[in-house]
């Protein structure tokens, strides 16, 4: 005796039992876990459905090209950025300027927004249980999410690179590029090295992405999880500004964002590049493995357990701290350089080499008789704050006198440069006379008027090279 009234099916409902019975009576699908490929596609569908990701893809594939094209139309150049002063000379300088900017800001932020959110989004939406029931394997969920976020990050990175390349080639052209030591790379060499530089930058991007995965797994819906890659990248940039020992600097997972510079010297500075890429990849693998271990141990029946908790934070952070210590020790033991890695001998060598290469460029621009680097026999004598022997370290107080010889000329030419050397080994040489050698004047080049190449130029000191 209850007051419950039986429900009376409507006409439509009376017509439905056949459909319901048909759907339910089919042979059940196999109980095997969903394949990683299908899981990855599922994750990609979710990622791409977010307006934020769509906007990022659009911006990454359009904005660099527009920027490079816009700079090509401007009279001033972003000469404070590496290769910025060559953006009117070749289309291959544009993607390198984009790469320098991306390594500082864009790639860390992209990894934050993609990898840093890929697990946290499920916490936010409360969909973990649904996903686990659907996929039937936490391991495969992890792999699918990691691969999907990797796919999107590679897509965004490729967009940044190719958009810059297309913008540069369309507006400036496929022309030779002046390298960081002043030597001229042919257009095809420049193309290969630009693409290789972007490929090298993928390694620290993957390291940041893995840190993003770890933060997303560990911190759940907390905003800190989302921000972790950006914060780590910021910390690494700050570290690069500090006068750290070269062993520590090179062992940081973000060093490959700097060490690609070595591709544009002759010979290529492969040591820092390979170490930087290797360290970054080890970080990527380690952080991903830690995220995986924390994820598969998570208890999905506890709704309060959004993220793996504080203990997991310690489990995630301590191994990475240990990895950093091991990297620093290994690089420190293997590297021939000590201290800051910036010594007087290396600065003099780098400056003289760049000067000799650029002297040839200037000679060609001014239609003077060609000379070779061997004929020039350029050398430099540098002091830092008036100190000669023993001068070392970063600073804007380096002053160098470059000497060179010309064939059939008895006198030795001399020019003065002020050098601003940053802690990562990059320097800007600013000509300080004589004016007809390294002062500001325009020269006529194949692409139009350009500043005297010996007036101001970029260079770098290979930190890991032996002092002598």
């Amino acid at each position, binding site marked *: 005796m209850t007051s419950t009234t039986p429900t009376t099916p409507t006409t439509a409902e009376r017509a439905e039992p056949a459909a319901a019975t048909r759907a339910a009576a089919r042979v059940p699908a196999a109980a095997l876990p969903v394949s990683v490929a299908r899981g990855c596609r599922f994750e990609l*569908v979710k990622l791409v459905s977010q307006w934020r990701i769509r906007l990022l893809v659009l911006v990454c594939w359009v904005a660099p090209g527009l920027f490079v094209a816009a700079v090509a139309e401007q009279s001033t150049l972003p000469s404070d950025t590496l290769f910025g002063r060559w953006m009117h000379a070749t289309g291959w300088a544009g993607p390198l300027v984009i790469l320098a900017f991306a390594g500082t800001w864009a790639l860390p932020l992209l990894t934050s927004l993609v990898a840093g959110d890929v697990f946290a989004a499920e916490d936010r939406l409360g969909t973990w249980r649904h996903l686990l029931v659907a996929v039937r394997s936490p391991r495969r969920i992890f792999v699918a999410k990691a691969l999907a976020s990797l796919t999107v990050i590679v897509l965004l990175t490729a967009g940044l690179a190719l958009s810059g390349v297309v913008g540069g080639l369309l507006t400036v052209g496929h022309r030779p590029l002046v390298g960081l030591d002043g030597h001229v790379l042919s257009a095809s060499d420049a193309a290969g090295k630009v693409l290789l530089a972007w490929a090298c930058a993928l390694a620290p991007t993957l390291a940041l992405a893995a840190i993003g995965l770890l933060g997303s797994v560990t911190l759940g819906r907390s905003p800190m999880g989302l921000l972790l890659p950006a914060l780590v990248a910021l910390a690494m940039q700050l570290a690069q500004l500090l006068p750290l020992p070269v062993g520590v600097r090179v062992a940081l997972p973000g060093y490959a964002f700097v060490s690609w510079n070595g591709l544009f010297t002759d010979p290529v500075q492969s040591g820092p590049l390979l170490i930087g890429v290797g360290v970054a990849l080890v970080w990527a693998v380690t952080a991903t493995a830690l995220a995986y271990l924390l994820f598969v141990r998570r208890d999905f029946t506890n709704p309060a357990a959004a993220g793996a908790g504080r203990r997991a934070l310690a489990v995630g952070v301590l191994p990475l701290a240990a990895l950093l210590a091991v990297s620093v020790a290994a690089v420190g033991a293997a590297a021939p350089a000590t201290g800051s890695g910036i010594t007087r001998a290396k600065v003099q060598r780098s400056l003289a080499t760049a000067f000799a290469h650029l002297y040839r460029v200037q000679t060609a621009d001014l239609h003077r008789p060609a000379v070779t680097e061997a004929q020039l026999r350029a050398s430099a004598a540098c002091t830092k704050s008036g100190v000669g022997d023993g001068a070392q370290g970063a600073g804007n107080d380096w002053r160098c006198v470059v000497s060179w010889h010309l064939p059939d000329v008895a006198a030795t030419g001399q020019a003065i440069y002020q050098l601003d050397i940053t802690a990562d080994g990059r320097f800007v040489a600013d000509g300080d006379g004589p004016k007809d050698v390294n002062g500001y004047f325009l020269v006529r080049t194949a692409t139009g008027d350009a500043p005297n190449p010996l007036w101001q130029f970029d260079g770098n000191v290979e930190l890991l090279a032996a002092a002598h």
Partner: protein
Amino acid sequence: MGGSDGRQDDGPLAIRARGITKCFGDVVALDGIDLDVTRGQIHGLAGPNGAGKTTLLGLLLGLSVADGGSLEILGAPVGRALAAPDGVAGFVDGPGLYPSLTARRNLGALAGLRGRGRSAAAGADIDDALDQVGLTEVADDKVRGFSLGMRQRLGLAAALLTRPRLLVLDEPSNGLDPAGTRHVRGVLERLAASGTAVVLSSHRMDDLEALCEEVTIVATGRVVFSGPLAKLAAENRELDYRLLTSDACAARELAGGTDGISVVSSGATRYGADSLVVRAPVAALDSLVSRLVGAGVALRELAPVVSPLEAAFLALTEHKEDAR
């Protein structure tokens, strides 16, 4: 459950749980739970907040593993692996849906997980599932704008899409309007009729009474009742009933003079001036009805103030809570 319908012939029980225990640290969430659910049956699961229902549903869905006891689902023992058993679908704590996708795309993505995302058959199944839960008209709207009831229905559609042999649902009627409730009930009844076992956890006793043949009540991690609803009603003999008659004064006098009946309230109650609330076992109530008819008093309405299930639920769980 023969093989004629293409199903595995793996016994009549969809769920057989014996002595299931589950702890979270020092908290004992499940303490020796036994549960039998027959195929083709809608089995209700009720209990106060924190009783362990969600933990139990999580075990059935493969979201966690029991610390002790044995669990067989659809004839297969559940191991220690964290994975949903074969043929099981459903949701706990609300359905998992992605707000940036449309209803159809949510289901399509799920179908894609099983390798059927773009086939014509999958499309037909998605349309069929949406139709069953009454969401055809909003199939191409983003879930972001869905009400709670629509999300519940879409969650049910997602479960239907996997063609479950055991469907585990946690509060599927949350947020549903009367039409939505009728849709959902219709779907569950048809699923059960086709042989699917349904475990339905709900705080809504009207849902359980309307749909379930059997019900299990848990409190503080233990089963305090499991069996047919009729048995539950019989075990709780005294209930409060509301009477509406043609002569309230006569009815009150007759009720007061009937053995086993006590008048709880009469006159100006929230049920109206002509109503009467009495507390009585069923047999005494039958006697009162006979006397009213014999005295020429028309009986216009007779209904329990709270449903037998709700009364039993309160009696069983309050006793358990008090004991704790």
